[in-house]
C-alpha cells in the first residue's frame, strides 16, 4: 500500500468515524444523565436526513435553509420522544425505559416507511460537495472534508458548552449525581430536554452528512449506523463526550482499514463493531475514558 493510498483510506476512515462520533455523542449524553440507551437515536438520525430531503425536494428550499429546518425539527422530535416515551418512566425499572425506547424506534422506522415508502430515494448533493480536492497526491472529496470539519467544529462547540456554560454545568451535575443535582435546584426537565435537543441536533447533522456522502435516504438507513454509534459510545466510555468522539473515530478507522488491508474480509466489516462491543464489555465495561462506578447493594 502506497503512502498516498494509506492517507486516502485514513481520510475516509476519519470521515466515517466523525459521523459515528456525531451520533455517539447523543447516545453518551442521554446515557450519562438518564442511564438510558436511547434505542431510537438511530431513527432520529434517519429523521434528520429525511427532513432535509423534504426541505430540498418537496418544499424547494435552498439546501442551507433545508438543513437548518431539518436540524430544528429533528431536535423537536427528540424532545417529543423524551416527553412521551421516557419521562413518564423516570422512576420505572431501567429495562422498562429501554423497552419503551425500542418501541419508539420501531414506531419511527415504520412511520417513515408509511410516509416515504420503503424504497431508497436519491438525496440531492449540493454541487459544493461534488468536487474533489487535491492535497499533494491525495484526492479528498469535499464531502469527506466537510464531514471532518463540521464534526470537529461541533465537538469543540459542545465541549465549550459543557465546560464553560451554566446549562453545561447543569448537565454535568445531573450526569454525576442525578438526585443530588436535583436538590441543588437544577431544573431537571429543562436540562434533560436540552440534552435531547443537543443530541438530536447532532444526530440530524450526522444524518444529513451521511445522506450527502452516500447520496440517498431510506427508512432503515439509521439502524446499523445507530447501533455502531452506540458501540462507539461504549468503546470510548459511555457518559463521556470525548470518549464518544474517540470511540467513533476508532470504529470508523477500523472498518475502513480492515476492508483496505484485507479485501477478502470486506463482508465482515459490519461485525467489527459488535465483536468490539462484546470484547470491551467483558474486558473493560467502562470503556477507554469511562469512570469506574460501583453497584451499591
Amino acid at each position, binding site marked *: 500500500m502506497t503512502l498516498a493510498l494509506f492517507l486516502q483510506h485514513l481520510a475516509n476512515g476519519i470521515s466515517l468515524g466523525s459521523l459515528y462520533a456525531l451520533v455517539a455523542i447523543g447516545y453518551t449524553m442521554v446515557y450519562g444523565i438518564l442511564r438510558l440507551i436511547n434505542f431510537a437515536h438511530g431513527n432520529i438520525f434517519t429523521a434528520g436526513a429525511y427532513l432535509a430531503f423534504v426541505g430540498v425536494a418537496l418544499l424547494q428550499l435552498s439546501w442551507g435553509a433545508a438543513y437548518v429546518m431539518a436540524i430544528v425539527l429533528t431536535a423537536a422530535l427528540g424532545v417529543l420522544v423524551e416527553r412521551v416515551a421516557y419521562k413518564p418512566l423516570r422512576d420505572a425499572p*431501567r*429495562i422498562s425505559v429501554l423497552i*419503551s425506547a425500542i418501541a419508539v424506534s420501531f414506531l419511527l422506522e415504520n412511520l417513515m*416507511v*408509511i410516509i416515504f415508502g420503503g424504497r431508497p430515494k436519491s438525496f440531492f448533493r449540493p454541487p459544493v460537495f461534488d468536487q474533489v480536492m487535491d492535497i499533494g497526491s491525495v484526492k479528498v472529496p469535499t464531502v469527506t472534508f466537510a464531514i471532518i470539519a463540521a464534526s470537529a467544529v461541533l465537538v469543540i462547540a459542545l465541549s465549550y458548552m459543557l465546560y464553560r456554560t451554566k446549562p453545561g454545568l447543569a448537565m454535568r451535575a445531573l450526569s454525576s449525581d442525578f438526585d443530588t443535582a436535583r436538590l441543588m435546584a437544577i431544573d431537571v426537565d429543562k436540562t434533560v430536554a436540552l440534552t435531547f435537543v443537543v443530541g438530536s441536533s447532532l444526530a440530524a447533522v450526522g444524518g444529513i452528512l451521511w445522506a450527502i456522502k452516500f447520496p440517498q435516504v431510506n427508512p432503515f438507513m439509521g439502524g446499523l449506523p445507530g447501533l455502531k454509534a452506540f458501540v462507539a459510545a461504549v468503546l470510548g466510555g459511555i457518559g463521556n463526550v470525548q470518549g464518544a468522539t474517540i470511540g467513533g473515530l476508532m470504529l470508523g478507522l477500523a472498518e475502513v482499514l480492515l476492508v483496505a488491508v484485507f479485501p477478502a474480509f470486506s463482508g465482515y466489516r459490519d461485525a467489527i463493531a459488535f465483536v468490539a462491543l*462484546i470484547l470491551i464489555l*467483558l474486558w473493560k465495561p467502562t470503556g477507554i475514558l469511562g469512570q469506574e462506578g460501583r453497584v451499591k447493594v
Partner: protein
Amino acid sequence: MSAIAGKSASAVSAKTPARVADGRLRILVYILILALLAVAVIWAQGSLDPYKRRVLSVGAINVTLAVGLNIIYGYTGQFSLGHAGFMAIGAYTSALLTMSPAQKAANFFIIPIHPLLANVRLPFLPAVLIGGLLAAVFAVLIGIPVLRLRDDYLGMATLGFSEIVRVLINNMQSITNGSLGLKGIPEYANMYWTFGWAAFSVIFAMRLAKTSFGRAFMAIREDDIAAEAVGIDLTHHKVEAFAIGAFFAGVGGALLGHWSSAVDPKMFTMAATFQVLTIVVAGGLGSITGTVIMAFAYAIAMEALRFIEAPMNLGIIRIPGIPGMRMVLFSVLLLVVILRFRQGLMGQRELSIDPILRRIWPRCVAEAPAEAPKGVRG
C-alpha cells in the same frame, strides 16, 4: 426471596390427604385438557382450510419462541435481545438437515455447498432437535462471558451477538448460501408439529417454575445478590436459563423455516426479536399463560390487520396500500403496554384451573395457599 418462602410453605403441607387427592385430580384434568387440545388439533389439521391452519401454526410457533424468551427474561430477569440469532441458528441448521441433496444443489448455484453438508438428510424431529441444541450450545458459549453483564448492557451485548450471527450467515456462502437464503425447504411444519412443540414448551416452562431450579431462576430475577447469598450459583443458573431459552428459540426458528419453506438472513433481524419481546412483555413477564394468549393474539392480529396495508377501493377514491402500518400499530401497542400497563395482560400470574375445580368438586381441592407477597421487579 418471596419465591423461596412460598416453596417451603407448600412443601410443609404437601402430604395431607386432601392435597394428595388434589394432586391426582389436577393431573387428571391436565391430561384431559391436553387430550381435548390434541383432538382439536387433529380436527383442525383435517378440516380447516390451509390459510387458517397456517395462521394458527404461526401462533403456535410464536408460543414456542416467546416461552423461550420468557424463561430467559420473565423467569430469570436476564434481558436478552439475541433471540433472532438463536432462531437463525435453529432455522438454518434444521433446514440444511432436512433438504434433499438435489434441492441443496439447486440452491447453492453460486458457490457449491460444503461437501460435508451436501448429502446429509435427517427426518424432521431430529433435525429440529439438533437445530435447538446447536442454538443452546451457542447460548452456553456466548452466555458464560456475557451473562456477567446486567440489564441494558446485557441486552446490547446479546443484540451484538445476534447481529454477528447475521453477518456470519451472510458471508459463509458454502454453508448458508449467503444473502440468497435457502429455498424449497420441505414444508413439514404442520399443526401437529407446531402445536406439539408449543404444548411441550408450555408444559416444560410450567413444570420448571415448580422445581427448585426454576425457583432459583426467579430468585435471581428478584434479587441476584440475595440469591447468591443463599447459595445459588449465579453464573450456572443464568447460563442454564439462557441455554433453555435459546433451545426453544432454535426450535421455533426451525419450525418457522419448515413453515415458510424459505429462510434468509433478513428474517432474523432485530424485528424478529422485537416481535417476541412484544408478546412476552404484553402477555406479562413470567406468565406462561399470558404468553400463550398474546402469541396467538399477535399471529391472528397480524393477519386480521393485513387489510390496512392493502389498497382500498372506496368507490370513487382508491387508497393505495400502506405497507408498514401493522408494525406501527404493534409498536404503539408495546409503547402503551410499557407506559400504562407495565404488568402486561397477566402480570406474573397464571390462568389456573383451581377455581373451576373447586366449584365442581369442592371437597377434594384444598384452599389455594395465600398468595406470596410480590417482590420488587426490575
